[in-house]
């Protein structure tokens, strides 16, 4: 019987997931199984997707869930359809918020990524000789998304630990997760605190931080007065590094879609075909990439 494996992601339009899929496809080609890629933006679509996989005779699937609290439901659905399952990126939790340790998972904790961002900012501030009290921080927030909250909180914890004052951190809530929304929200913060000349920015992803950096440009703050560090490291960020002159977008914490896509798919295949149980928990790490190091970092992570 042919091996068929599903790979369900929460936001198929996001480059990150495109990459995960791409690397999973690579695994499928190498191992000779069929990969069924499905986008499921919410809980209901996810449940249908699992049913759908069951109906087309898949044996297992990998999922990045739209919400970690869906845990028990996903597990039950998978069992009902007799499918093996693993999670990627985001780890499932139960009703009480405890991780479902029985489900094999590969990912990186949102808080950890955020901390990496915070550390990057702090290091850059030191390199530039900035004093925390003269710097404003733009927290581009999208609190509707739990992961987003965890990430920015991670960054903030590092900033505070390094002497950043809480009252110098200004929330810029984006109405949507695109760059324009972040730009508009950040502009308001900048204009409300016109006295501050040095800014740092962090947020959910590269797009959010890019919006903040664009905002600093539009109000005329020079690039050397801005430190923005994003998360993701896909094309939006790379484009920024490729610009002829450096911008306030100093770096991005790259996580490797290759490991997440390729390895999870391979592991699932081994599980299905050779009954080889995957590791219960694999944590990958993010790496900070900057204008001068991004190519190297990408190579190390196996992306290019």
């Amino acid at each position, binding site marked *: 019987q042919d091996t068929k494996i599903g790979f369900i992601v929460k936001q*198929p*339009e996001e480059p990150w997931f495109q990459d995960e899929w791409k690397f999973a496809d690579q695994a499928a080609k190498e191992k000779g199984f*069929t990969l*069924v*890629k*499905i*986008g499921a*933006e*919410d*809980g*209901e679509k*996810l*449940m*249908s*997707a699992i*049913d*759908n996989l*069951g*109906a*087309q*005779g898949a044996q297992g699937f990998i999922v990045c869930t*739209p*919400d*970690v*609290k*869906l*845990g*028990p*439901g996903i597990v*039950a659905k998978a069992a*009902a359809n007799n499918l093996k399952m693993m999670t990627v990126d985001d780890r499932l939790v*139960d*009703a*009480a*918020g405890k991780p479902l340790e029985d489900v094999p998972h590969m990912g990186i904790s949102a808080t950890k990524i955020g901390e990496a961002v915070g550390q990057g900012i702090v290091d850059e501030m030191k390199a530039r000789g900035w004093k925390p009290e003269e710097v404003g921080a733009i927290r581009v927030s999208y*609190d*509707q*998304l*739990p992961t987003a*909250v965890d990430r920015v909180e991670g960054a903030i914890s590092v900033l505070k630990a390094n002497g950043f004052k809480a009252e110098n951190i200004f929330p810029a809530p984006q109405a949507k997760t695109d760059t324009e929304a972040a730009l508009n929200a950040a502009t308001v913060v900048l204009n409300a605190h016109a006295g501050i000349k040095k800014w740092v920015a962090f947020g959910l992803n590269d797009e959010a931080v890019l919006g903040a950096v664009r905002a600093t440009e539009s109000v005329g703050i020079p690039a050397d007065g801005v430190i923005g560090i994003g998360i993701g490291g896909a094309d939006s960020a790379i484009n920024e590094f490729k610009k002829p002159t450096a911008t306030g977008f100093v770096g991005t914490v790259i996580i490797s879609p290759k490991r997440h896509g390729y390895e999870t798919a391979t592991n699932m295949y081994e599980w299905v075909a050779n009954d080889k149980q995957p590791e219960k928990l694999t944590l990958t790490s993010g790496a900070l990439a900057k204008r001068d190091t991004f190519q190297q970092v990408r190579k190390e992570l196996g992306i290019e």
Partner: protein
Amino acid sequence: MTNHLKKILLGDQGIVLIFIVAFTIVALLVPNFLTERNMLGLLQSVVTVGIVACTMMFCLAARDFDLSVGSTAAFTGMVAVMASNTTGSILVGIGAALLCGAFVGFVNGFVIAKFRINALITTLATMQIVRGLALISSDGRAIGINDPGFYQLALSKLFGIPTPVWILAGLFLIFGFVLNRTVFGKNTLAIGGNPEASRLAGVNVDKTRIWIFALQGMVCAIAGILLASRITSGQPNAAVGLELSVISACVLGGVSLAGGRATMAGVIVGVMIMGIAENVMNLMNIPAFYQYIVRGLILLLAVMLDNLRSSAFIRR
């Protein structure tokens, strides 16, 4: 084509026929489509849209519009989970959700009917407000269900068919009956067909509209409860964009946005077409970006076919 056949094909139930033909073709061409498992999965996947479409049909038929259904379903789902977690009683949870849903709908209806505010704007506003409430009440995070009995709402089966599907079928029957056989249904169609005439004929237009919205809210709550049970948690971000799916399903099913025209059979077909499209695209492993295009084309094709049909039959 003989005249007789033409009449059936082009008549009021024509879209049903078109649907049957399309279904047969899909069943023959797409592997795994006509399996029992897939059929059940398909049916379950249309439960939310189908349930809400029942009352959206009334709303549109009365020339109104409701964008708040997605938020309401999410909010009421949360309410059901929170209330049953706190009280320990699933029934109380369900009751609270139904009440909250009906209340949101009532507010919509009241504002629209009494203050004569555009339905689009009103429900766009409540859509945001209710979503805000859902987020605030849960601090933006999903809330897990404590009592596993709650899952049974969605998991239990009767004669091999999941409860939500039975509920959907029941609602289709009920609202089909209400539309065609009751004073409320006729009044709804009359209001949509000619609000002025209805008012002058003594139809209580305001009351009917308020009722429609209140019902809509309550039905959203049913959808929200089942959804929460299905995804085993109350999620403040659930059902985003539901309004567009539901309205499309209705319009696809021949409900006129200009009011006054609606059939339950049409709406059912509309709901099914949308569900089958998604199902088949995933069965056929169509890449995500191309799914957008296919979805758009199916939508266009379906209304075009229906239009061709009805314009060939009755001009104007």
